[in-house]
C-alpha cells in the first residue's frame, strides 16, 4: 500500500499528469525495449534502405551515399520483354489459387459440421490438418518425385488417363499452375477449415431444432442457418487474400521451378531472388521488389475501401 489514492482504481490513473503515469509504467517500457530495438534494426532500417531502388548501390557508400540514378532500374524492368510475363504469372497464379482454394474449406466445414459421428469427425479432422505440418520443402520434394517421368506416381496415373508424359509433367509450363494449386489444396484445405468449424460451433443449436420442427431438411438448414453464420468470416478471409494478391507463395514457386517451366513459374518474387541473391544486382532487385510491394499496398487500400462500403469491415 504505497499510495492510498490508488485504491480508486483505473480512473485514478487518468487524474495524474502524463509524466507521472509514464514513470509509474517504466517497467512496462523496459519489457518493450528488445522488441522495439529489433524492429527498428531489422524492419525500419531496411525500409530506409529501400531508397537504393533509386540509387546505384555501392557497399562502401551505403544506403544514402550511393549515387542517385532516378528511375533507371524501373525503366530497365519495364523495358524487359519478360516483365509483363512475370507480372501476369504472379497475378494469375494468385487469382487462380484464391479461386480454387477458397471455397473448399467452406464446403467441407459445412459438411463436417452436420456429421454426428464424433469419432469419425475427430479422426477426419486430424488427418485433414496433418499436411499443414509437412514442410513446403518436403511437399515439393514429393511433387518432384511423383511428377518424375521415371516411375512417378502422378505420371503413372496421368499416362493411364492418356496424358502426354514424354516430357516430365513438371517441365511442361502448361501444368505448373495446376500442380501448384492442387498441392495447395492438398496441404491447406483441411487447415483452412479450422476457423470455419469454430464459427459453426457457436451457432445456436436451438435454431437447428426449430428448423427441424418446421420440416427443414439438412440441405436447407445448411443453406439457411450455417452458411449465413459463416459470412463474416468468409468476407474477412476473402479480403485478406485479395489484399495479399501480389504476395503469392514464393517458396513453392521457387522450389517447383525448373529450367523448362519458367514461362509460367517465373513470378516477381522468384525474379527478385535471382537478380538480388544470385546475380548480386542489389539495386535492380530492390526496385522490382518495391514495385511489387507498391502494387500490393494499392490493392490492399482498394479492397479495404470496397469492403468498408459493402460489408463495413476494415483492416487499415
Amino acid at each position: 500500500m504505497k499510495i492510498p489514492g490508488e485504491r480508486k482504481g483505473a480512473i485514478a490513473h487518468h487524474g495524474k499528469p502524463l509524466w507521472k503515469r509514464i514513470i509509474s509504467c517504466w517497467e512496462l517500457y523496459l519489457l518493450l525495449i528488445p522488441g522495439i530495438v529489433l524492429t527498428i534494426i531489422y524492419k525500419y532500417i531496411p525500409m530506409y534502405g529501400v531508397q537504393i531502388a533509386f540509387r546505384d548501390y555501392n557497399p562502401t557508400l551505403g544506403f544514402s551515399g550511393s549515387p542517385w540514378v532516378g528511375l533507371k532500374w524501373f525503366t530497365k524492368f519495364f523495358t524487359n520483354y519478360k516483365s509483363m510475363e512475370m507480372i501476369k504469372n504472379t497475378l494469375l497464379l494468385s487469382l487462380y489459387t484464391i479461386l480454387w482454394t477458397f471455397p473448399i474449406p467452406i464446403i467441407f466445414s459445412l459438411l463436417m459440421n452436420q456429421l454426428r459421428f464424433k469419432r469419425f469427425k475427430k479422426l477426419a479432422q486430424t488427418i485433414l490438418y496433418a499436411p499443414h505440418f509437412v514442410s513446403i520443402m518436403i511437399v515439393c520434394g514429393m511433387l518432384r518425385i511423383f511428377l518424375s517421368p521415371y516411375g512417378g506416381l502422378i505420371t503413372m496415373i496421368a499416362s493411364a488417363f492418356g496424358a502426354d508424359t514424354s516430357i516430365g509433367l513438371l517441365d511442361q509450363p502448361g501444368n505448373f499452375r495446376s500442380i501448384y494449386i492442387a498441392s495447395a489444396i492438398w496441404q491447406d484445405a483441411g487447415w483452412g477449415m479450422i476457423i470455419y468449424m469454430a464459427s459453426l460451433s457457436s451457432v445456436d443449436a436451438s435454431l437447428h431444432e426449430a428448423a427441424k420442427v418446421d420440416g427443414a431438411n439438412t440441405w436447407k438448414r445448411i443453406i439457411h442457418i450455417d452458411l449465413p453464420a459463416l459470412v463474416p468470416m468468409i468476407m474477412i478471409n476473402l479480403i485478406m487474400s485479395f489484399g495479399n494478391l501480389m504476395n503469392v507463395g514464393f517458396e513453392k514457386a521457387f522450389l517447383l521451378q525448373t529450367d523448362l517451366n519458367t514461362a509460367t513459374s517465373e513470378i516477381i518474387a522468384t525474379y527478385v531472388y535471382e537478380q538480388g541473391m544470385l546475380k548480386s544486382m542489389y539495386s535492380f532487385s530492390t526496385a522490382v521488389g518495391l514495385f511489387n510491394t507498391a502494387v500490393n499496398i494499392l490493392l490492399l487500400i482498394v479492397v479495404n475501401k470496397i469492403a468498408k462500403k459493402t460489408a463495413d469491415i476494415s483492416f487499415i
Partner: protein
Amino acid sequence: MRKNKNKTGSVVRGSDRAMEIGMVIIITIFVLMVLYPLYYVVIASISDPYDVYAGKTFLFPSGFTLEGYARVFKEKAIVTGYLNSILYTVVGTIVATALVVMTAYPLSRKDMPGRKTIMIFFIITMYFTGGLIPTYLVVAKTGLLNSMWALILPGGVSVFNVIVARTYFESSIPQEMYEAAKIDGCGNLKTFVKIVLPLSKPIIAVMVIFAMVAFWNDWFTALIYMNDKDRYPLQLALRQIMIQSQASANALSGMDGGYAEANRITELIKFASMVVGAVPMLIAYPFVQKHFEKGLMVGAVKG
C-alpha cells in the same frame, strides 16, 4: 425435444439419412486423398526402387528393404542438418516466444501511455517491408551472416502473434487484478512474472507451438544467410537430396553397380529422407492440435 424430432415426419428423416451417408462418403474420399500421398511415401521408402518404378507399390510395399534408412542415417548432410535444426528450433522458439510475450503484455495494459502509438509502430511492419535485399544488407552489416542468430533475430517480433497474445491478456486477465497487485505493493515487473505469466500458460503454449513449427520448417532464411553447408538446417539438407538430387559420395560409397545402382540408391534415399524429415512434426502435432485451434480462434477474434 427428442420426441418432437421424431414426430416431424419420416420424409425429412429419410432424406436426411441419405444426405448424411452421402456426406460421410464425400469426406471419406477427401480424407483418403489427403492421406494417400503420405502413405505412398512411407511404403515406397521401404520398397525396392525398381518395384516403385514399375508401379508395384500402389497399395503395399514390395521387395521390403530398410537400406534407404540405413543410407539416410549415414548421410552427413542429414545428420548435421538434424542436429542444427534441433538447435535452431530450440533457441529460436525460446527467443521468439519471450519476445512476443514481453511485447504483448505491456501493449495489453490499458493504463500505459503511448500504447496505441507503439502498436501502430509494430503493425506498420506487417504492411511495409524493406524487401529482400535491403534486409539482407542490414543483416550482413550487423555481422549475423552465417550465424544462427540470422535465422532468429531479423524475424524480430511476430506482429501477428503479438496481436493474438495481447488479445488473450486483455480478455482473460481482468484489469482489476493489476489494481489489486498494486495495492499489495507488486511492481509491474513482479506482477508480470508472478501473476500474468502463470495465468497465461495456454497462450504461451500456443506461441511456443507456432514458433516451433515455423523454425523447424524454415529453409529460405537459411538459404540466404548461411554460406557454410555444415550449418544448414535439415530442410536445406533435404533440398540438396530431393530437389537437387545430390546424394553425397559418402552415401553412395561401398557399392559396385555403377550408374544404375547409384540412381537406385538416390531414389531410395529420397523417399527415406522425406519420411525422416516429416516425422517429428507429424508425430508431435496431434498432441498439440487443440492448442493450435485455440490460438487461431483467439487471433481470429481480433483479425
